[in-house]
C-alpha cells in the first residue's frame, strides 16, 4: 500500500494515523507539495486529476479521497472502526465523514492561507471554521449525553480520524480551540491512544509518557 504523502498535510496525516493505529505498514512516497508544487506536476496529475494529495495506491486501486482511504484501511485491517453494527451508528459515521470535508475547506483553508501564504479570504475561512467547530462541539456533547465517548459510537471509528487533524490544527489557521471543552477532551483521548503518532503542530502528551529514568553514569 503506497501513500503519496506530504508531512504537513492533515489529510495525509489522517491516513498515516489510521495506519499506525490499526497496525498497517504503508510505503510512503514523499511529495514536494511546498515549495515544489509536485502535486500539480504530470506524474501525480496522471494519478489524480484533481491535483490534490493524499493519493493511495494498492494494486489496481487508486484512491484520492482521504475518507475512502480510511474506510479501505479499516475494512482491511480493523473492521470494528467502521461501526456498522447499527443503522444509526453506520449513518453517523457517514455523516461525520462528509462533515470532515467542511473542516478541510474552512480550517484547512485558513491554515494554508495563514501558514503557507496560499490565496484565500482568511476572515471568511475562519468564520466558517468556527461554525464547523461549534457544530462538532455540539455533536460531541450530545454523544456524551447518550453515553457515547466518540463522534459516531462509544468507540473510535473512522469518523473520529477523519475529523481530528484539521480540528487539532485549527490554531495554525488562527482559530482558537479554547472555547470548546468537549473537543479538547476528545482530542486528548485521541492523543493518548496506544500507537498514536504525531505530526508537526500536533504534539504528543508528554505527561502520559513513563517517568524518565536515568541509568547511573548516563549523561
Amino acid at each position: 500500500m503506497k501513500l503519496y504523502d506530504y508531512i504537513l498535510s492533515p489529510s495525509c496525516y489522517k491516513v498515516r494515523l489510521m495506519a499506525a493505529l490499526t497496525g498497517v505498514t504503508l510505503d510512503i512516497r514523499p511529495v514536494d507539495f511546498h515549495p515544489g508544487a509536485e502535486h500539480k506536476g504530470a506524474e501525480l496529475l496522471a494519478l489524480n486529476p484533481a491535483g490534490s494529495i493524499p493519493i493511495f495506491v494498492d494494486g489496481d486501486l487508486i484512491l484520492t479521497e482521504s475518507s475512502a482511504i480510511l474506510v479501505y484501511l479499516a475494512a482491511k485491517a480493523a473492521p470494528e472502526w467502521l461501526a456498522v453494527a447499527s443503522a444509526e451508528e453506520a449513518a453517523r459515521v457517514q455523516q461525520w465523514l462528509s462533515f470532515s470535508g467542511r473542516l478541510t475547506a474552512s480550517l484547512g483553508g485558513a491554515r494554508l492561507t495563514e501558514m503557507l501564504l496560499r490565496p484565500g479570504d482568511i476572515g471568511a475561512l475562519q468564520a466558517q471554521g468556527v461554525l464547523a467547530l461549534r457544530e462538532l462541539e455540539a455533536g460531541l456533547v450530545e454523544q456524551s449525553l447518550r453515553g457515547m465517548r466518540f463522534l459516531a459510537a462509544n468507540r473510535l471509528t473512522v469518523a473520529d480520524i477523519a475529523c481530528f487533524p484539521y480540528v487539532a490544527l485549527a490554531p495554525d489557521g488562527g482559530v482558537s480551540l479554547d472555547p470548546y471543552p468537549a473537543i479538547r477532551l476528545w482530542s486528548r483521548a485521541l492523543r493518548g491512544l496506544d500507537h498514536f503518532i504525531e505530526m508537526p503542530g500536533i504534539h504528543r502528551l508528554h505527561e502520559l509518557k513513563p517517568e524518565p529514568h536515568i541509568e547511573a553514569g548516563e549523561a
Partner: protein
Amino acid sequence: MTMQAMIDEWYPVGLASELDQTGRATALMGEPIEVVCDENGDAKVTGSNGRVLPVRVRYGHVWSSLGAPKKELFPIPEADQPGRRFVDVGVVRVRCSPLRAIENFLDIAHFPFVHTDILGAEPHTEVQNYKVEIREDVDEVWATQVKFYQPQAAKSASGGITTEYMYRVPAPTCSVLYKTCPPRPSEWDVITLFVQPLAEDLCDVWPWMALFDDTTSLTDLIHFQQTIFLQDRSILENQIPRLLPLDPGMEIPTRADLTSVAYRRWLKRHNYTYGAQLVAQ
C-alpha cells in the same frame, strides 16, 4: 520601538527560484513592497512609493532593505563550497516577533520536548556548558562547543548521536547554524533561518540549507526541515509577551540560555528593537 537601526539591514524577501515577471507582493517592516524579475532577468524590489530598493540575490533568496545598508550582506563561505547541496525549504508565515523566531532557533533546551525523538529525547535533557561570545571584529553573536544528544540529528543520521553545534547571528533576523555532518565528520552541515519581518509580531521565515548528503532525496530533506520548523511554529505563536523583552525582569534566563542572553544584549546594544519590548510591563 525604533526602526532606524534595523532599517539599514538586509532581509530575505523571496526565493530566487520563484522570481517571475508577475511579481510577488509582500512587505518589509510594515511597508508594502514588490519583488519582480525585470526585463533583463534581474531581481527588482520596489517600495510603496515606487522607489527602487537595494537588491542582492544570494543563498537561494532575494534580499532587500528599506534603507541604505552600511555593510554588504553577511558572508556564508560554505555557500561556495563544492559538493554541498543547497536546499530551499520554502516560506512559512509565523504570527510572532521576528526576533522571537531567531531566539527560538538559538535554543537547544526545548529539543527533547518539542522535537521529541528527532532532535532530542527524554531523559537526555541536560544542556552541557558551552561558550558564547559577541565577536567584535565581525560584530556577530557566536555560540560554540554546544553538544546535545540527538536520536535523529539529520535525515542522513541513523540512530542517536551526540551532535555538536555552532550558532552564529550575523544580522538581527538571520541565524546560521553549523552542525555535525553525519556522512562527513570533518565538515559542518549549514542550516540557516532567514527571517523577513513583515510587522513587529508577524514574519515570513525562509529556512535554507547547505548540506553534504548525496543520498537523501531533495523532498526528504525539505520535509525533515519543515517538520522541525512546524513543530516550533505552534510554540512560537503562543509565546507571551509577543515582543521579545530586551530588559531584565520579564523573563528569567538560566545557564542554558546564554546564547539568548548574548543575542538580546547584542540587539539592545545596536538598537535593533523592531519586534522587541524595551521596558518590562
